[in-house]
């Protein structure tokens, strides 16, 4: 999970996986993904409990649905 100067740089990287080409996104889009409450709430005193609450489970579900999966063969 890395940053690159541009999409062309990401595609030229030795570790580039064509099946995950759709995971190349502007940093602002990834920043939105990592603004999910799962990340925002890390500073709370009851964070682990919160992750298992209804709100935490809902946040995790939304997060998972937003993460890219490998393309089919």
């Amino acid at each position, binding site marked *: 999970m890395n940053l690159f100067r541009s999409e062309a740089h990401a595609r030229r990287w030795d570790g580039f996986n064509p099946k995950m080409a759709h995971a190349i996104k502007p*940093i602002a889009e990834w920043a939105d993904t990592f603004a999910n409450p799962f990340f925002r709430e890390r*500073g709370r005193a009851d964070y682990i409990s919160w992750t298992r609450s209804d709100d935490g489970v809902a946040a995790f579900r939304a997060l998972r649905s937003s*993460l890219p999966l490998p393309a089919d063969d």
Partner: protein
Amino acid sequence: MTDDGAPLQLLDRGYRAIMRQVVETATAPHFTALAAELAIPVEQARQLSHELVSITPGWMAPETDLFASFPPFNLQPTQYRVTVDGVGGWYAQCGLEATAVRWLFPGKTIRVEAPCLCCGEVMVVEMHDEEIVATEPAEIVGYTSDVIGGSAESRPFR
């Protein structure tokens, strides 16, 4: 009590203690220090440390009880150098988690500097709470070559 791990309240206290120290000092506590802070036996603190990194998801340095990664931070240097209102010392676990560091420093400016893995040229991202203040160059992208969190069976965001 969790199924076969530490009581939930202890997980909360342990997570809070570790995260507080990482945020304040860019270092993680040794489990003996964690034991003292939480007033629990040393062995329980060692086990708690391992349980918490498996949840968060972070990891220990291989074959040790020493924190290596506690997201969004890395305790070992990565290419993602983080400064907070101009003060350095932190590293992000990865380029994407770097964008989540800001939530632990409300009201402060987070600057991430990293070399591009393709060309080695430096990139800079500045964030302040909700706002991405600056990116240099403007075309910076994030990329993961695999499923974030690993396989579905072991996905750590739980």
